[in-house]
């Protein structure tokens, strides 16, 4: 089977595609650091140490986030979080923090370059994301601040609803090219703008 959109790549760079006014906005979401924090908050001194190091209460309810701009902590699992910084000064001294967390019974891994981040906004964002992901993105079940790990087509993706208007997602770098194309093609039905990158 051939697909007339299979080899199209010219609708993945900054510009407007499809219908106007567009129903979707896409952009790269930039961040300066992304660290995977692991540990058991119920076992001292990890929890206290982690909250002290990042000046942030780690979200412990499943699929929730904590945000203290420019830092966001996303819940990945009962003992795993992703701490994302959108400004360079917000996450520094990796080795010292790693050592402190190791000493406190936890771990800290630098995964900054592992993922590419994208922002998806606009009135049709929920529908467009749902083309390649089985999650329910409606605000009633995916409220502001919710995050969840699922798929974008064949590829793993981490979704995060920053606010009513804006989703941010992370996809592993090596898969990003195909995944971005999937996202653009999904958006084509409603028309979309690809905007210049902006902060996570």
């Amino acid at each position, binding site marked *: *089977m051939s697909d007339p*959109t299979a080899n199209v790549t010219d609708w993945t760079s900054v510009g407007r595609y499809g219908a106007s006014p567009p129903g979707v906005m896409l952009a790269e979401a930039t961040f300066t650091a992304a660290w995977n924090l*692991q540990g058991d908050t119920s076992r001292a001194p990890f929890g206290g140490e982690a909250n002290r190091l990042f000046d942030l209460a780690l979200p412990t309810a499943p699929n929730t986030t904590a945000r203290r701009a420019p830092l966001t902590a996303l819940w990945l699992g009962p003992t795993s979080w992703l701490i994302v910084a959108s400004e360079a000064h917000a996450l520094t001294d990796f080795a010292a923090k790693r050592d402190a967390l190791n000493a406190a019974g936890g771990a800290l891994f630098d995964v900054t370059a592992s993922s590419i981040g994208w922002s998806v906004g606009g009135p049709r964002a929920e529908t467009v994301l749902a083309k390649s992901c*089985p999650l329910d993105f*409606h605000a009633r079940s995916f409220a502001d601040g919710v995050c969840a790990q699922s798929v974008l087509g064949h590829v793993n993706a981490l979704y995060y609803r920053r606010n009513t208007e804006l989703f941010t997602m992370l996809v592993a770098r*090596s*898969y990003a090219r195909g995944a971005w194309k*999937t996202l653009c093609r*999904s958006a084509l039905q409603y028309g979309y703008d690809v905007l210049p990158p902006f902060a996570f």
Partner: protein
Amino acid sequence: MTQSHRLPEGGIVDRSRPLRFSFDGAPYEGYAGDTLASALLANGVHLVGRSFKYHRPRGIATAGVEEPNALLQIDVGARTEPNVRASVFPLREGLVAASQNRWPSLSLDAGAVNDVASRLIPAGFYYKTFMWPATSKAWLRYEHVIRHAAGMGRSANAPDPDHYEHQHAHCDVMVIGAGPAGLAAARAAAMTGARVILCDEHPVFGGSLVGASAMVDDGPAAAWIDATTRELKGSSLVTLLLRTTAFGHYDDNLIGLIECVGEDSADGAPRERLWKVRAKSVVLASGAHERAIAYANNDLPGTLLAGAARTYIDRYAVRPGSRAVVFTNNDSAYAAALALQRAGVAVAAVIDPRPDAAIDGQWPREARAAGLPIVPGAAVARAHGRLRVRAVDVVPLSGGAGRRIECDVVCVSGGWNPAVHLFSQARGRLRYDAEHATFVPGSALSQMTPAGAANGRFGLAAALDDGHAAGIEAAYRAGFAAASAPQPPRAAAIATGALQPLWSVPTTRKGDKRFVDLQNDVTVADIALAAREGYRSVEHLKRYTTLGMGTDQGKLSNVVGLALLAEVTGRSIPEVGTTTFRPPYSPVTLGAIPGHATGKEMEPTRCTAMHDWHAERGARFVNTGLWKRPHSYPRAGESPDDAANREATNVRSRVGIVDVSTLGKIELQGNDVAEFLNRAYINRWDTLAVGRCRYGVMLRDDGMVLDDGTTSRLAPTHYLMTTTTVNAVKVMQHLQHLLQIDWPELEVFATSVTEQWAAAALSGPDARRVLAKIVDIDVSNGAFAFLAVRECRVSGANGEIPARVFRMSYSGELAFEIHVPADRGRAMWEAVIAAGEEFGIMPYGTEAMSTLRIEKGHVVIGPEADGRTTADDLGMGSLVNAAKWCIGKPMLARAALSAPDRWQLVGLTAQDGAIMPRGAKIVADPDHALPNPMLGHVTSWCWSPNLDAWIALALVANGRQRHGETLWAVSPLANAKVRVTVGPPCFIDPEGGRLRV
């Protein structure tokens, strides 16, 4: 022809938008809003195809998805599609349609000889007739002829030019069907604040109300449809989908929908969209299908269901003929008779088996008042005509002489079957409703509420009422209740007389065909034959006669067929029961199921950070797992193999660089990592110092080699493990399983950093000189020994890049692995290339890398470690630490694993300049009588440009004791036998001096 049968007004067609189309080469015209069937009927065309088995002329029988006859070939070339139901296919400009299953033409079809010879080919004939003579495999020859004669249209033999997409959706209430019940349900559910999806297979809302003259809420039905859909459209919580069929119900209320997006959408839009809807609660308002009555020649073109005739008149403003006979056992067809009369069709008679006194519902009374001639207590016994019905014989059921009535249209109604398909798929049980002589939902389902005609609640007033209640109930089940009870829409109830079951009209003439299943040419006689031959189960009946198979899945025929089976086997209809309803409810385009996951997108592609650089240099890529890796970098006029040999030679003589970003990388932290590694690997890890690396081998529980790689200690409690490219995920899962299930007490945390680091291996005698130019650390042998790791900064044209450099070697040369954050991978690579230019650096691909490792005797997980080999078989037995336990170690004590004839890793060199055959096995004597005892097999082989010979790695019985022996590598497939010398697996620098300089 110019729409000779189009009514001057009415219907929902847009008379300002004429559309031209062709059928069997003849040009016609219809209007926007027509289906292909309504446009053909508007031009007086009834004959549209030949039947599957007997090649009998067939016309348009229905106005919906249940169409058994009007299956046409649509379009030409790559877009051509067979078996398209004209009754639902929307007309479009320039449409090319053709009839199927006829030769040389539709009106004169050679295959019709089957009809004459039908006594030779009764139901199930192919199970019996063509088995004779038993000894000669005659079936194989018959089959060829039968295959040629059967079948309907032709599928395209070019790739599908269209594409299809998927859409997931979630809702509280999914309403299937937007007729009066569905609209009322959606409206009631939406009022509670529930998220609602409403779908309908038609291009307009309203179902049976479209074009009808009924009144709802004291106004015209059209106004109510308009107001209701406008109200629904105004809610952000409601999704309305037209031309969208709910084709299947799956576990946990997953509903499959297929949406026809259509060819007239924006460029690049998909042809169809497959919806996967997860609904908390479902309202099934899918309506009902009318059924026919079997009488002789009831398949002649011009014969259609009474409800369909009414639909063609009301919805499409098409007059189905000039003179009609209506044959019905229930009141609904009287409404059709009245519509026929209004449309200017002469109604010659309404034939009704019921006694005169029983024909007293509101519609029969109106028919009488309108002067329609009603013939009670009678039936149509036979139709006459060749390519179109010309007359019918009407007989009194009490006996006596019949009479012939001229007509060009026969409108039949044998009653209505609720469309319970999805209810049955959802595991709802059906109940036989004697009043309507049909199966209706008979059990309550917590997740699905049938409503309206689908629930056996016939008539507009009942449908509105039932739909409204179902909408409230479904919303309630999803957790929503209205603040105040909304009023249901109202319509006047119509008094209806009871139906009198009539499945077939008896015939005395031999050879008469009374069709039950028009699509599969199954007759009343076939069902009787099946029963006589012992096929008493309705499932057996279906398989023996093909009743209810095909694109319509017996929507007209199933209930009639099982009722006839009940009659001939002397059982009640509920005793016979129904066949199982399975998805899909109606045909689904195959391409919609994979959506975009076809061709290159069948699986995702992974690219390293340096991918574009490789591509720009003309690299030929090879798939390793999902990754694209450069196989080699051929220059102009150079073959990929020559390029690989050049690259491999350059590594041994000067310096090369290879992209190894695809290796699995796992970081481990915690106070117990060394203990964890001790348990997972065969060798010791508690002795590894910070800043050092070590090669390790993991075993499976059964002692066989699982994976290998290096692990480096980056900080006291921080390690980096590498795995093979293909096993990256498997090893990560293995470690997580051990940490979470087996040894949760260990304080070890793991995360995959495969994506984090881009990596390149710099190999060759000049590797150090290249590296020294770009890093800010001392890389001399004294400061940076073999198997050490250092953190440093790589500087290049694009600034400084933080890096981890490992001194380790896969090629056997002086080598360094440079890891940098993936976003800087290309910058690092280009810095190395620039620094290496003066030393003649060349990039090398996986092929040269493979040559270099075969020359060094390094094993690969897969070819050598094939799941049957131990560490000792691979020459690494000494790595198994005697002092500690590890996974798989206890199993190594099995006697078989130290048997003297174990296959062990050796190196082979081809003699006499011969080429090592692929996939060769190793034997002592190539000319030994078969079966030739096998001593082992070649696992990896290559031309070694550095040894100027074909070499191989092989697993050979007792191989380590055979060094110096001459054996044979033979390949019966390639008809090759090559004399080989057995030796140690490492061909170059076995002492490892080159990599330690």
